[in-house]
């Protein structure tokens, strides 16, 4: 029997500690981990909970992130509730195995503390690692602060293990800004959290000796496509389950989550659409702009995969000009997030102007003033009726102005 962990109604936790408490309350059976900044405390704390008797689980230390996710796959296929955490280069090393986990439909929960990818080496937060996982078949949810990192980690198990989903889930938080900033967090009691997450009901578990199964079958051109299509349908269909779990969580806590969050969007003409901690910055900037008479709003993506195309289109349907913020170097494209939003808006009735900003790489600060400048620029596009700048611009970059691709609608 696990030792009782005393919790206050209000705790002061950083994002890492919040995520690790969610793992404890969810009674995670196995964490297989390899440490990497800035996500290390999540798995380190889980290890200490095991060591100090707060949880009856297994902490397995391995030689790499590739091995960590491989171990998670083994434990999950065996039938356990499994989680781990990683960042950046560790995430990249895990990449091959991420596809194995989703292809085998294993409900692993991965806490990703977003950090830039080298080179040059950098430990600060950007979304390069998150984007690397975007085609991996994992559900990807984004927390904007420590409270959300905790809440979404609890929701993640419930979504992943739902029998109509059975897909692995990543819960993202921004490196350092969320992971290492102590904030007020209101945790659930252990009893409430356990009741909410529930017990895992295994599917095709390898510890069921009455029905031995093969995991990791080989399929060539005559079978592979059907399996991948079935998997794709599962992640597309997970949208309703995610909504249901968020609704149940709201009932329990009063905290409401949506796959697409909208702030000041009732009458907004100009919009910043973003991910992660940038959302809170943009929200402050939008309020400031409204005082100056600009109808500014913020749309935030809670659920990056499956990408909420209809909800994004719905949320932005009355906007005139939209700035999409990509916190990752797109390596010869416009930006993954820009592309998704553009795709969603192309079939909207009024087809608003959409431009993209590459910003915040390697933890470069995204200030309220810069967000306000972007709003003013969007207003200029809206007033002109066409995009007046390059479609792709760089926000917060030193040196001569850099931009690419121009509109043909002007």
């Amino acid at each position, binding site marked *: 029997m696990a030792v009782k962990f005393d919790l206050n109604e209000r705790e002061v936790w950083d994002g890492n500690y919040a995520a690790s408490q969610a793992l404890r309350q969810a009674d995670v059976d196995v964490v297989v981990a390899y440490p990497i900044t800035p996500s290390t405390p999540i798995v380190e704390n889980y290890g200490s909970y095991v060591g100090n008797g707060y949880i009856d689980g297994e902490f397995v230390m391995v030689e790499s992130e590739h091995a960590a996710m491989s171990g998670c796959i083994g434990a999950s296929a065996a039938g356990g509730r499994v989680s781990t955490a990683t960042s950046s280069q560790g995430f990249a090393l895990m990449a091959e195995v991420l596809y194995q986990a989703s*292809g*085998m*439909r*294993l409900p692993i929960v991965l806490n990703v503390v977003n950090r830039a990818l080298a080179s040059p080496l950098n430990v600060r937060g950007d979304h390069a690692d998150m984007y690397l996982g975007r085609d991996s078949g994992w559900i990807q949810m984004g927390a904007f602060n420590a409270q959300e990192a905790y809440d979404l980690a609890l929701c993640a198990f419930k979504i992943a293990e739902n029998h109509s989903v*059975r897909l692995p889930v990543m819960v993202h938080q921004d490196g350092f800004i969320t992971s290492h900033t102590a904030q007020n967090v209101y945790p659930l009691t252990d009893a409430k959290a356990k009741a909410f997450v529930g017990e895992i009901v295994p*599917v*095709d578990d390898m510890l069921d*000796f*009455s*029905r*031995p*199964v*093969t*995991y*990791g*079958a080989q*399929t060539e051109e*005559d*079978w592979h*496509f*059907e*399996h991948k*299509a*079935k*998997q794709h*349908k*599962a992640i597309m269909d997970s949208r309703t389950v995610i909504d249901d779990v968020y609704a149940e969580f709201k009932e329990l806590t009063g905290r409401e989550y949506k796959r697409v969050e909208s702030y000041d969007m009732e009458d907004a003409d100009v919009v910043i659409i973003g991910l992660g901690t940038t959302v809170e910055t943009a929200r402050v900037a939008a309020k400031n702009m409204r005082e100056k008479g600009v109808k500014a709003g913020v749309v935030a993506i809670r659920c990056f995969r499956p990408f909420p195309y209809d909800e994004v289109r719905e949320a932005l349907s009355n906007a005139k000009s939209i700035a999409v913020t990509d916190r990752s170097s797109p390596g010869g494209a416009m930006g993954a997030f820009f592309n998704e939003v553009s795709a969603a808006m192309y079939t909207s009735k009024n087809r608003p102007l959409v431009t993209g900003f590459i910003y915040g790489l390697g933890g470069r600060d995204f200030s309220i003033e810069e967000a306000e400048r972007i709003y003013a620029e969007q207003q200029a596009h809206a007033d002109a009726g066409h995009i007046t700048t390059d479609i792709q611009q760089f926000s917060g970059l030193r040196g001569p102005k850099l931009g690419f691709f121009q509109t043909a609608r002007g």
Partner: protein
Amino acid sequence: MAVESQELNLLANNNRGESQLEAGFDLLGWDEVTQGSVLPSFDGDATGIANKKAEERAYSGFNSYTASVASWRVIKPVFNRDICIDCQNCWVWCPDSSILSRDKQMLGIDYDHCKGCEVCVEVCPTNPKSLLMFSEYADLDESLAAWPEKKKKEKKSKEV
């Protein structure tokens, strides 16, 4: 299969190697394939299956036991009962579980699964060897008739 004079279905379930991988199965749609391409090894309840002999197990159609995966073999091991000392070395080392052995007595080769890797021949300690590689199309009796004689040990030069 070229090997004719040896009992081919030795210790075999009646569905061993019944399907050819190249022959194709009923091709199912995306809505019919198994979740996560997870495949059950046996039909029905498999409790205690480890204690059952191969020929008593209900191998499922997904189990490679029921498929012949030997079509790309170009040379095959031939087993010579008269020389074998039942040391079980080949059974231990065979990477495809294709050495048929029962009660520690070597009985033959599962030609539905043997890939012709020659490991069994390599580890066979007898003189001459009790397993030798022949062309896939070599006749078994002719192969046994062509078995080499015992090799004489070369005399060591006297120590000075």
